[in-house]
């Protein structure tokens, strides 16, 4: 008798997750379509003027920023929602009673979610390039991709933490929204950086990981910066992702460790039956 390989089990889980994701229109809408609609809206609102103090066009700023938003929506919001829904339905418990190793099931889910996030980013950038004249810089693409991987891992870990903390499916979307949306306004995702921001807002945003994801990713699309991005210091308009990745790594690891400790496989706490 041959036991299915771990790779095979992973692919089985990944395949099931992909089916489920694309069959639930709301999740697909928020990951892929909603950020695109925002790009259309912002481009229509601001035209394609250069925005100060960045010195880039509105689309050159918004395409990467909203790509980050789409990716984060997918691995933070959708992933936490789907984990909690599966837990409430007893799906996690059922699978834990099968030979599927639990970490592999979670791995398949996370990878499926990250794959959707990648598609959302590629679609956003492609539409930016084709429809709004967004420029790409080959020297920065590697850094953009590494930033994507670190950022998505960080927010996936935080998504698992939200799932672990959420008491039920109804509580999950408000928990995700309340933590993500306000941050998006101060983290150079919905609104470009401006010299007039209150300094305490800057301090708050610097503390959380979203701004670091947005900055490190958007830097790859900023024609006024130099270098490949793999640098620690941004002195002299150097494109530097490493400090941002470090912050996201700290958040991701802390969130992941807490999520593993708090994760539940069943709806309610144990009770007598």
């Amino acid at each position: 008798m041959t036991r299915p390989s771990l790779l095979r089990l992973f692919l089985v889980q990944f395949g099931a997750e992909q089916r489920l994701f694309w069959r639930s229109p709301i999740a697909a809408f928020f990951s892929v379509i909603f950020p695109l609609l925002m790009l259309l809206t912002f481009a229509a609102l601001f035209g394609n003027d250069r925005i100060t103090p960045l010195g880039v066009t509105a689309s050159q700023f918004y395409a990467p920023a909203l790509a980050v938003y789409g990716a984060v929506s997918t691995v933070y919001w959708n992933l936490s929602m789907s984990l909690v829904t599966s837990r409430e339905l007893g799906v996690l418990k059922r699978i834990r009673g099968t030979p599927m190793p639990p970490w592999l099931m979670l791995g398949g889910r996370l990878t499926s979610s990250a794959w959707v996030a990648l598609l959302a980013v590629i679609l956003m950038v492609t539409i930016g390039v084709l429809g709004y004249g967004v420029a790409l810089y080959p020297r920065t693409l590697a850094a953009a991709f590494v930033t994507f991987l670190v950022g998505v891992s960080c927010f996936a870990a935080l998504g698992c933490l939200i799932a672990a903390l959420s008491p039920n499916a109804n509580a999950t979307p408000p928990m995700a929204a309340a933590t993500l949306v306000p941050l998006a306004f101060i983290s150079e995702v919905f609104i470009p950086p401006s010299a007039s921001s209150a300094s305490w807002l800057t301090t708050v945003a610097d503390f959380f990981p979203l701004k670091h994801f947005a900055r490190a990713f958007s830097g790859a699309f900023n024609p006024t910066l130099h270098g490949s991005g793999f640098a620690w210091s941004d002195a002299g308009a150097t494109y530097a992702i490493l400090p941002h990745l470090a912050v996201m790594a700290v958040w991701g690891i802390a969130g992941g460790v807490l999520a593993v400790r708090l994760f539940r496989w069943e709806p309610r706490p144990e009770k007598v039956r």
Partner: protein
Amino acid sequence: MSVAAVTVENVVKRYGGVTAVDGVSLTIAEGEVFALLGPNGAGKTSLVEILEGHRRRDGGNVRVLGFDPASGGRTMRERIGIVLQEGGLEGELTVVETVRYHASLFPRPKDVDDVIRVVGLEEKRRSQVRLLSGGQRRRLELALGVVGDPDLIFLDEPTTGFDPSARRQAWDLVRALRGFGKTIVLTTHYMDEAQALADRIAVIARGRIVAEGTPATLGDRHLRGARVRFRPPEGTSLDGLPAPFVPSGSGWVEGETKAPTETLHAVTAWALARGIELDGLTVMPPSLEDVYLDLTRT
């Protein structure tokens, strides 16, 4: 004597200050259909979930197919099938996708289409799970429990909430599984279900096994007497009425006997001598229900 599929020794499970399983010991032989019968809250689900590896015990020893379920992991799970009490199905997958997913996790699964046919879901093969009726979902869950061709199957209250005809169908399925030589552990709070399906029954109440036996011998049922009852006309004097009869209220007279023929003869002779008719005269063997209610009385 066959090999033991499951052995449980002195298992204890506590939740906070409540002891849900209080020193249970039992042995389940290979190929046996074993029913854990008890009222809600008796601890049967807790016990079964310890065997399945879903919960950790606070004391005692457990062996399931030779594994400790707390650490049996993938190797043990390749040989057991679990049909949970509730759901756990993704509504947006189809029946065949769901069964195929589970089949692909096991080293030697059964044929997916065969399993779907056996549980009678052929027509629903391509339906999404969310569109199935409650009974159809239950049948799908049974399919998932057997598709890995496990040696041991856990059925947690397999027919709770079923209508009578769906119950009969589920019973037929369990009997079919048994025909394949599988060991089956089922929990139920229906006495007739345990009686209809099980080779052996353990009655659990307040976390303890209060009786164990075959459906015929459980609680020494075969040793108990038959119950004879009747209602003499109002105002009849019970003088001269043979033992063991005593009034039991509302005009009824009842007695338990191990020699029902003789007792019945004596009581009809008594009635004929007085020229009276015995209303509602019945002889009843002790029912499993009486035994069960006696055993689980709190």
